[in-house]
């Protein structure tokens, strides 16, 4: 960094030199971006949500561009936790990257199984628990839509992880009362919150006149949803000021990252912006440092949640 601003941040007990991370599912497991910048130069790589078994994911088409955004319907394609731990994690660690592993399950028990495997691994900075997945035990409703289901997932992870690694619960904005869900997962033992996952959307293909995506609905991401992310982070930081938030949703520049930080984010994940620009994360990190400096901040910590003060 060419500025003297201290960018370091923490999520629970985990320390990061900068607050700018990849977003789960938007950096694969790191290898593909390593050509564009050294992974150790960013705050952390948040890996693609991994499940116990390998998954093919959903049918194509899996994406549709929308005004200032996109829909995706990947369906958690991935290698499964064992292959991940054998191949991807060691590679990331060999790069000097800090790693946050995102996990996803179809039952609350599956999350527990994943957590147990991660506890045995070393070199992980934090676990991000993606609870915006269809809960096969409850009509396929996503866990995060229901406070009880969300809590059960975090419970089963907390039972396994005794405090060695911070647990970050990732919530969906598609709920009536996000602060209530947040309070619930914190009570169940989440050390931090990741906000927001994609917003449920749909595009109809005007040629076929049917839903365009193979999965019919998809998750809306990108700058279009940034105002929703800022609002959600603000609401949750207001309700739970002592719980660190990993913010995300439409961040494409340093000014966007700062907006989320002022709203209450301790760290910022960059997702969709990397699709349009593989070096976006690096520029965002540089711009953020300059913006903080221009506003007289000497450390990132001073700016977190600033919009709530006075």
């Amino acid at each position: 960094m060419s500025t003297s601003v201290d960018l370091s941040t923490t999520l629970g007990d985990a320390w990061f030199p900068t607050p700018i991370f990849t977003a789960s599912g938007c950096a694969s497991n790191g290898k593909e971006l390593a050509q564009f910048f050294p992974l150790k130069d960013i705050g952390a790589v948040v890996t693609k949500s991994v499940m116990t078994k390998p998954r093919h994911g959903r049918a194509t088409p899996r994406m549709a561009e929308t005004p200032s955004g996109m829909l995706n319907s990947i369906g958690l394609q991935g290698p499964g936790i064992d292959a991940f731990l054998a191949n991807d994690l060691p590679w990331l660690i060999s790069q000097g990257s800090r790693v946050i592993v995102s996990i996803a399950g179809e039952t609350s028990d599956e999350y527990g199984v994943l957590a147990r495997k991660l506890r045995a691994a070393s070199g992980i900075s934090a676990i991000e628990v993606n609870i915006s997945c269809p809960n096969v035990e409850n009509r396929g409703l996503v866990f995060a839509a229901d406070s009880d289901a969300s809590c059960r997932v975090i419970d089963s992870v907390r039972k396994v992880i005794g405090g060695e690694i911070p647990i970050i619960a990732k919530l969906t904005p598609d709920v009536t009362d996000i602060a209530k869900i947040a309070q619930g997962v914190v009570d169940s033992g989440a050390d931090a919150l990741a906000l927001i996952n994609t917003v449920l959307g749909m595009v109809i293909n005007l040629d076929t006149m049917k839903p365009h995506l193979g999965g019919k609905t998809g998750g809306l991401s990108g700058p279009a949803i940034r105002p929703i992310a800022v609002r959600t982070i603000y609401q949750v930081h207001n309700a739970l000021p002592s719980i660190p938030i990993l913010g995300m949703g439409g961040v494409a520049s340093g000014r966007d990252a700062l907006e989320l930080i002022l709203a209450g984010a301790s760290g910022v994940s960059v997702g969709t912006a990397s699709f349009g620009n593989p070096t976006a994360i690096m520029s965002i990190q540089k711009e953020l440092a300059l913006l903080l400096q221009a506003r007289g901040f000497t450390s990132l910590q001073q700016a977190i949640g600033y919009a709530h003060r006075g």
Partner: protein
Amino acid sequence: MSTINKSAAQFLAPIIANKRIGSYHQIILGVGDLVKNCRPGNFIAISVGGDSSRMILRRAFAISRTSDSAQYGGTIELIVAPHGAGSRWLASQSEGTELDVVTPLGTAFGIPTEPVNALLIGGGYGSAPLFGLAEVLKNRGCRTDMLLGASVGEKIYAPMEGKRSVNSLQIFTEDGSMGEKGRVTSRLEAIISERAIDIIYSCGPMPMLRAITEIAQANDVIHQCAVEEAMACGVGICMTCVLPVKDETGIISMKRSCIDGPVIDGSSVCWDLVGKNPAEF
């Protein structure tokens, strides 16, 4: 470091020329020394719409031909079909405009080490990368025949200079407005045997690639095709561009067409599963 995207770079490339040819725009970009890394089959991902665009994703274009001249340094040629907002924006940019590009991306056509009989088949703007490929094959001493198809004559892209790199060129249009009436696959079986074709290279719409694969397999000819799936990132990080591909052991997996493709062995693609729900494989 990883080897994925290993020769790719992100930079500003000036438009050296932008010329309408039939339904298409031929755009020449200055890419400097990087041209040395561009192989036939590789593609380029371009930001579209300018600084305050609502289009947040890059558009992918096959690299048609490359050249290295004293005047312009390394250049690459693209053939752009003005279609939606992104390609129309690109087609309307004038010389001198600098484009934000990432290139070269993806796999390249495999080049035989021996001189063989190659058949190049292009559909619509799919002919673009085949002309660059033809030059390389010709330099390797291959015999290269080319079949081009499109719905109408104006959608056939076959530049003068390009024709010089091939031994023969046959054109098919569905409405008969140029060349023969029909599809590139109409007489493919006969052509393969008459000309003792060893390898087919193709690029064009997915149904065409599928039809060629079937004929190639039935006739025991190698078939390398460049696929075109909707890509959000082009660099392997989003998993939107996947295709069901079978490996040697028969296991099907969803491969990313941006890094495991766009050039891929036609016989490894499970064409009947494309767009199907993978859970049912």
